[in-house]
């Protein structure tokens, strides 16, 4: 029998019922406030250029201009912006997953000498705030030591730094630690190479956690502003989060709102469709500190 602070019996008393209704009303109010900016962007995007400045609240447009959405899509060149974002984030997530899972597998099952120090080294980067090293990181990307490459204005300048994520390594390692070592040992007796163990045992068994890390990384990288803003000076290469803001000033407010609403659709769809994975990720996040 599911119960909260109130039992099922108490809920049927007048006091219990009042409490429940007040709680529900507060939650609905909070939900309305939370959703308001989405709703506001959507309806403002439907308004004509005079209606949007008209006096009065006018929450629902009298004469919806669906054409605004088509115009915003075309004038902001949104297919290009989305394509940039998907390339940056997609490749970034895949590379991060490969690098992190390989490292986690090694630290967990291959027992490298000095593994604990390396783990500690990974985890220390979680303590150093990003604002404390984005300036030298920019300098590094301008002239990568040893190889002397300039990664500025190239997607590699984002993909490679995106591979650095101690949180993913930590979460994956914790998960792989729980896979019985007997599986690895018997595979080794059968003559399997480390790469075969990784591909045929570890990765299939870690599928659930890999999806969680993948969804979390996708949302985190999609939201990123500072690094793509610093690395990509060419407007044609910039992701939607960076470009949209700078384009917005050149267009009327109703088109800005329409474009913003379109830009929000992919992350919103992910949040709604994949929310159970993100929920797992949140509880992992709570453990992190």
């Amino acid at each position, binding site marked *: 029998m599911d119960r*909260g602070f109130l039992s099922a019996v108490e809920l049927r008393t007048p006091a219990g019922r009042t409490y429940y209704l007040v709680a529900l009303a507060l939650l609905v109010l909070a939900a309305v406030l939370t959703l308001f900016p989405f709703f506001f962007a959507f309806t403002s995007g439907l308004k004509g250029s005079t209606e949007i400045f008209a006096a009065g609240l006018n929450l629902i447009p009298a004469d919806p201009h669906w054409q605004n959405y088509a115009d915003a899509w075309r004038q902001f060149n949104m297919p290009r912006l989305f394509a940039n974002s998907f390339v940056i984030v997609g490749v970034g997530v895949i590379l991060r997953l490969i690098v992190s899972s390989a490292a986690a597998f090694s630290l967990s099952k291959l027992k490298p000498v000095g593994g604990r120090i390396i783990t500690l080294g990974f985890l220390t980067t979680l303590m150093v705030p990003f604002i*404390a090293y984005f300036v*030298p990181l920019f300098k590094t990307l301008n002239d990568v030591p040893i190889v002397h490459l300039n990664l500025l204005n190239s997607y590699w300048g984002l993909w490679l730094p995106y591979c650095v994520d101690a949180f993913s390594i930590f979460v994956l390692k914790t998960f792989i630690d729980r896979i019985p070592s007997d599986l690895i040992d018997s595979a080794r007796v059968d003559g399997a190479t*480390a790469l075969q163990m990784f591909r045929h045992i570890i990765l299939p068994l870690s599928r659930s956690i890999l999806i969680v890390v993948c969804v979390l990384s996708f949302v985190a990288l999609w939201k990123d502003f500072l690094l793509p803003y610093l690395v990509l000076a060419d407007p044609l290469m910039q992701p939607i989060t960076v470009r949209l803001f700078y384009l917005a000033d050149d267009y009327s407010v109703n088109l800005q709102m329409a474009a913003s609403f379109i830009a929000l659709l992919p992350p919103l769809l992910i949040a709604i469709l994949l929310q159970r994975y993100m929920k797992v990720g949140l509880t992992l996040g*709570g453990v992190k500190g």
Partner: protein
Amino acid sequence: MTSYLLRRDADEARSKRSGFDMARFRAQLPRQITAYLFLLPALIAFGLFAWYPIVNSVVMSFQDVSLTGASTWVGLHNFELMLKDPATGVIWKNVAEFLFWSLALGFFVPVIIALLVREMRIGKGFFRVVYFLPTVVPAAVAVIIWRFIYDPDAGILNELLRQLGMSRQLWLQDLTLAKPALVAVMTWNAFGTTALIYLASLQDISQELYEAAELDGASPWQRVLHIGLPHLYPIMSLMFLLQIIAVVQVFTEPFLLTFGGPGRETLTPAMHIYNRAFIRVDLGYASAWSVTMIVVLAVFSIIYRVVNSRLSR
């Protein structure tokens, strides 16, 4: 044979001294090579794009650096400049006020929401998704929408004030309103994550605990106060620290929404570092700020650890 035994004895003696087993190491060498091959991509990535820049940040704070890479040692000069910089005092005052507003507006909201959602018998999933939605919104897009909500002339907020018979406000240009207005955007953008973490934690409490409390005559409010909230305290204290760390670092919202203005009212450390490094191209001075931020946030974390261990004892 003897030489082998001698060598083995020597190896064993050495391993007893140093805790390092030479013979086992030789046998394991191929395995160690594979282990490091799997670690290599991460080591290279962390080395180039995390460890090296972090060390470089500390080094550069004692140098005068140009973007081309030429550098000279200047000792503590950058830190002296930081103390003399008229912006320094303003920025720390801003940080304190941002912390005040973000904790006042945002710290208890997720706790209350989690407690209320826990109590719902139906619709839990709906509320969970709704409160979570803003957390996936990129700050740079949120800013475009909120800029229009706050617009002095056509914005909905001033229209609402007008309908209520109050005078309009210049939300983002007003000296006293700019900070809370920014913090409202940040809170909207972030509270869902924290609320869901609290909710997950509340779901862990055994229902028998409530039943036992009820049998002992504890009122519903006492059950919240003595069972629900105490269960949340450890996570609340962690979220308190994480919120401080996040607010001290804030960049995108003030950078895009107010550009530090009006005056310097919303200038944050991250924006100052950005301005000094990329507009005035004074990387050394910017790094002095970076190092200061590492130290300040480390001090926060240490205070948190000490206070926490005192409290839990």
